């Protein structure tokens, strides 16, 4: 039954994707993207990937809609048609699709234990998680310990994205002909009393949930990425309700910039510390006498670094869009 449900949801995904492509109105496209995100989160969960699904939920449920609508308020609402040679484009797409379809014939069936992905490193990671790290969530162990370099790289990529956005549309970017004026979240929904009351009830619980996801990530789905996105969602919700300046007074953009860089620095700093203590880069075992204890400490610190960076980056991007005037 689960397979049938998964296929049904994937079919809905395809329909939604076609709808996004066909929609000439960009607002419609943003709304359909919201549905697509919800569908993907459900599919990820059905395929037993709760950590990925939680990331999709934390980012897709609120933040991506807010950011896409912010971007939309800076531009026109209707897509400009033309500029693409339809025959050539169709030919390229059809040939690529044919190759991809052909490639799928070589794929092992879903869940096949003999598939290469299950025989290569995964076969080592699962028992090693029990022996060397001793936490129930294998994903956290892989992400933080076995693949620590990759995760550090991802955090730096996130930070780089924020730097890029700030250079392009940040408060210090050249304004050009864009005069600053009212924009999404500039004034806030102050006169909507029901929204303010319920929103302010929800914000503490979102932050509490973010902390739970952050510090319980070794035992249940979640970790720094998801927690950072949830914390950012709470602050962005406050910004929507009370205006951008109120959100900026909660966490000042200068603090946000420090958070974005500081989290990545904390992550890298753990690596340097382990080197100074005589280990290799990000080899947590040297942090404490007991290797398992040391692994737990290392994971806790680097997850905190990830969470701080992600939260800082997402709120910074929100501020950058919200402060931007309309041409």
């Amino acid at each position, binding site marked *: *039954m*689960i397979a049938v*449900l998964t296929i*049904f949801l994937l079919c*809905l995904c395809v*329909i*939604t994707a076609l*709808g996004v492509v*066909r*929609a*000439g*109105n960009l*607002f*419609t496209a943003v*709304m*359909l993207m*919201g*549905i697509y995100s*919800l*569908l993907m*989160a*459900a599919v990820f*969960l*059905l395929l037993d990937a*709760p950590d990925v*699904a939680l990331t999709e*939920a934390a980012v897709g*449920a*609120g*933040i991506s*809609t*807010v950011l896409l*609508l912010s971007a*939309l*308020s800076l531009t026109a609402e209707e897509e400009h048609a033309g500029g693409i040679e339809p025959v050539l484009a169709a030919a390229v797409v059809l040939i690529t699709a044919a190759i991809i379809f052909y490639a799928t014939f070589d794929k092992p069936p879903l869940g096949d234990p003999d598939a290469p992905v299950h025989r290569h490193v995964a076969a080592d990671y699962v028992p090693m998680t029990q022996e060397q790290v001793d936490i129930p969530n294998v994903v956290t162990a892989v992400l933080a310990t076995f693949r620590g370099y990759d995760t550090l790289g991802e955090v730096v990529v996130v930070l780089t994205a924020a730097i890029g956005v700030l250079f392009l549309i940040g408060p210090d970017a050249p304004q050009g002909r864009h005069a600053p*004026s*009212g*924009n*999404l979240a*500039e*004034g*806030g*929904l*102050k*006169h*909507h009393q029901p929204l303010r009351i319920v929103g302010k009830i*929800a914000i503490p*619980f*979102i932050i509490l*949930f973010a902390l739970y*996801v952050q510090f319980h990530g070794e035992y*249940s*789905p*979640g970790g720094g990425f998801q927690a950072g996105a*949830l914390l950012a*969602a709470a602050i*962005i*919700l406050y910004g*929507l309700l009370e205006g951008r*300046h109120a959100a900026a007074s909660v966490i000042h953009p200068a603090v946000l910039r420090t958070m974005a860089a500081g989290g990545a620095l904390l992550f890298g700093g753990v690596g340097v510390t382990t080197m100074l203590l005589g280990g290799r880069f990000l080899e947590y075992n040297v942090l404490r006498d007991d290797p398992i204890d040391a692994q737990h400490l290392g994971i806790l610190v680097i997850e905190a670094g990830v969470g701080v960076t992600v939260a800082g980056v997402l709120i910074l991007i929100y501020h950058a869009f919200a402060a931007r005037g309309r041409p």
Partner: protein
Amino acid sequence: MIFAGAIAAIAVTMLLALVRALAGPSVYDRVLAVNMFGTKTVLLLAAFAFVADRGDYLDLALAYALINFIGVLAVLEFFRQRRWGHVPQVADGSDMQPTPHANDRTEGDDSRASSP
């Protein structure tokens, strides 16, 4: 598998909501469809957590229940900005109370209401 019926009903309702989102006709119908879709996803995830017997999957449904309405607030704010024509706003925002009498049909919303 005592929730098979409920899960099937939720899945079919998702399809119906998707049809409403694709059909429109107005932008608000699409927002309504997305909102419905969000609630259905929460229910589907919660029911699936019990089918799979994984209590920690409920965290996901909880996350959606907590933050799914942020998107609708962003939509409201987006249309409010469009209505007010992006004029610079006063700091306290106290005079931004829109009145129902101020609305009319010439502000361009109806042009958005019909989409191909």
